[in-house]
C-alpha cells in the first residue's frame, strides 16, 4: 500500500465522519444520538479500553531489569554518578521519568548547535522535539480549558489558564495561543511525514489518521469559535448534562458542533486500539523506568526456571586425563 492510499484512506475516513456528523447534526431526531449517545459510548470505550490495555501491560512480567543506561553508573564513591540518566534509586527513576514525560528528554538529545565545516548547524531532531512539545502541551491546555464547559462554577485555575492563553487579546472572541500552536504543530507533524522521504517510508495509514483527526478537531473548534458561531449556552447546558449524568439536548446548537463532537468521540474511541496508547505505555517502558541496580540488588523474575547447566563433573569426566597431564587440579583422580 503506497503513501497515496494510506493518506487517502485516512483523510477519507476523517471526512466521512465529518459528513455523517454534519448530516446528523442537521436532523433534530438524530441530535441526541450525536450529542449524547456517541460521546458517552466513545468515552466508555476510551475508559475501559485504556484501563484494559494498561492493566494488561502492567500484569505482564518484567523478567529482567534492562534499562538503557545513558550516564555514569553508581560505582566507586569518588566517581560522580549521573543520577538521572543512570538512576540507582527510585527518586532517580522518578526524575528520569519526569524529564522523559514532561520534557521529552530523549527526543531532545542531539539538538545542540555544532560546528561543521565552519558553519553552525543544528541537529535535525530539534524540530521534532519542539513540534512534539508544542503539540502535546497545547493539546493538554486545550483539554483543560474545555473543563469550563463541564464544571459550574468554573474553577479559578481554569479561568486563569484561559486568561493566559488568550493574553494577546487578538480578535473577538479572543484568539487562543494554544489553538494556533496545536494546528501549527499538527500540521508540522503531518507535513514532516509527507515531505521527508524516510518519514514517508516508515509512515502507515494509522500514523496519518490520528493526525488528520486532531487537525479536524482543531479546525472545527476554531471554526466554531470564530466563523460558524454556535449557541454556547446550549453547548454548556449539554456538557453539564453529560457531566452530571442528566443529559439534555438543547435546541439549535449548530451542526458544526456535532462535527467537533464526533471527531473528538472518534479520537476517544480510537485511542485504546492505536499507537496513541504510548501515553500510557511510556510510564511502563522498562527501558526507562527501572533503576540500574542489578548488581546491588537482585531483581526477581516470576517465571525463572532452572536450566541444565553443563556441570563441572561432566566437564572433568570428559577432559580428566588431559587436565592431569597439564597439571590442572582435578576432583577425582
Amino acid at each position, binding site marked *: 500500500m503506497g503513501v497515496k492510499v494510506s493518506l487517502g484512506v485516512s483523510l477519507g475516513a476523517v471526512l466521512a465522519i465529518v459528513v455523517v456528523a454534519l448530516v446528523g447534526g442537521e436532523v433534530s431526531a438524530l441530535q441526541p444520538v450525536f450529542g449524547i449517545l456517541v460521546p458517552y459510548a466513545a468515552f466508555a470505550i476510551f475508559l475501559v479500553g485504556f484501563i484494559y490495555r494498561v492493566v494488561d501491560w502492567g500484569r505482564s512480567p518484567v523478567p529482567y531489569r534492562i534499562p538503557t543506561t545513558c550516564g555514569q553508573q553508581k560505582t566507586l564513591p569518588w566517581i560522580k554518578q549521573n543520577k538521572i540518566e543512570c538512576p540507582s534509586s527510585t527518586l532517580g527513576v522518578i526524575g528520569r521519568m519526569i524529564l522523559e514525560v514532561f520534557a521529552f528528554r530523549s527526543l531532545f538529545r*542531539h539538538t545542540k548547535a*555544532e560546528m561543521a*565545516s565552519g558553519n553552525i548547524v543544528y541537529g535535525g531532531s530539534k524540530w521534532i522535539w519542539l513540534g512534539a512539545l508544542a503539540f502535546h502541551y497545547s493539546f493538554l491546555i486545550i483539554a483543560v480549558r474545555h473543563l469550563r464547559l463541564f464544571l459550574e462554577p468554573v474553577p479559578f485555575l481554569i479561568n486563569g489558564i484561559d486568561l493566559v492563553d488568550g493574553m494577546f487579546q487578538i480578535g473577538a472572541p479572543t484568539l487562543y495561543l494554544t489553538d494556533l500552536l496545536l494546528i501549527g504543530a499538527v500540521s508540522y507533524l503531518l507535513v514532516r511525514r509527507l515531505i521527508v522521504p*524516510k518519514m514517508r517510508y516508515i509512515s502507515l495509514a494509522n500514523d496519518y489518521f490520528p493526525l488528520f483527526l486532531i487537525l479536524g478537531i482543531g479546525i472545527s473548534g476554531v471554526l466554531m469559535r470564530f466563523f460558524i458561531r454556535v449557541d454556547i449556552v446550549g453547548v454548556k447546558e449539554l456538557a453539564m448534562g453529560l457531566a452530571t449524568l442528566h443529559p439534555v439536548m438543547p435546541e439549535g446548537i449548530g451542526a458544526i458542533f456535532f462535527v467537533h463532537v464526533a471527531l473528538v468521540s472518534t479520537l476517544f474511541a480510537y485511542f485504546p486500539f492505536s499507537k496513541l496508547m504510548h501515553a500510557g505505555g511510556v510510564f511502563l517502558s522498562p527501558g526507562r523506568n527501572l533503576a540500574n541496580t542489578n548488581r546491588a540488588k537482585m531483581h526477581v523474575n516470576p517465571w525463572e526456571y532452572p536450566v541444565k547447566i553443563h556441570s563441572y563433573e561432566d566437564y572433568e569426566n570428559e577432559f580428566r586425563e588431559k587436565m592431569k597431564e597439564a597439571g590442572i587440579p582435578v576432583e577425582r583422580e
Partner: protein
Amino acid sequence: MNLDKLLAKKKDLIVDKWINSIYESYPSETVEFFRHQRNKFANPVGADISEAVGPLFDELLNGNNQKNMFSLLDKIVRIRAVQDFPPSGAVAVVLLLKKIIRDETKKDIDTDGFFEDLLELESRIDYCILLAFDVYMKCREKIWEIKLDEFKKRPFFVEGEARCLSYMVRQEQGQGKGTKDCCNSCGLGEVR
C-alpha cells in the same frame, strides 16, 4: 567563452549537481538524509561525499595530479565498495559528471575551440574513472585480504566448513549449493 572559464564560473552549480547525483544513487529514502544532516559524525557518508567532490572537480580541471585524485576518489569509492552496489555502480560516480558538464555547456558548444577543450576534459574524466576502478579494486582486494587474515587467525580447532576456505569462496560466489559436500582439497570430506 572558453570551457575553462565557463566551468570555473559554474563550478558551484556543477559540484552541487554532481554531489546530488551521487546521493541519488542511494535509495531515495536516504538521499534526503545524506543531503541535510550536516554533522559529519552523524552522517559520515554524506560528509565524505560532499567534502571530496569539490576538490576532485578542481583537480580534474586544473591539477590532474594522480595522487590527489586517488585519495579524493578513495573517500567516495571506499564506502561504495562495501555497500550494495555492483562494481559498475561503485565507480559510476565519476561518469555522472560527464552528463552534468554536457548539460551545463550545451549552448556554448559551438564556440571556437570549445569542443576540443570538452574532449580533453572528457578524456580526463575517463582517466579518472579508471583511477576510480583502481581504488575500487584496491578496496575489494583489501576486503579479501582482511577476510583471509581473519581466516588464518581462526583457531585450528574450528571445525567443519568454517575451516574450509574454498567453501567460503564458493558461498561468496553464490555457488553455495555444496553445503553437504565440501571440496576435496581440504580433506574435510562431507560436512555434516
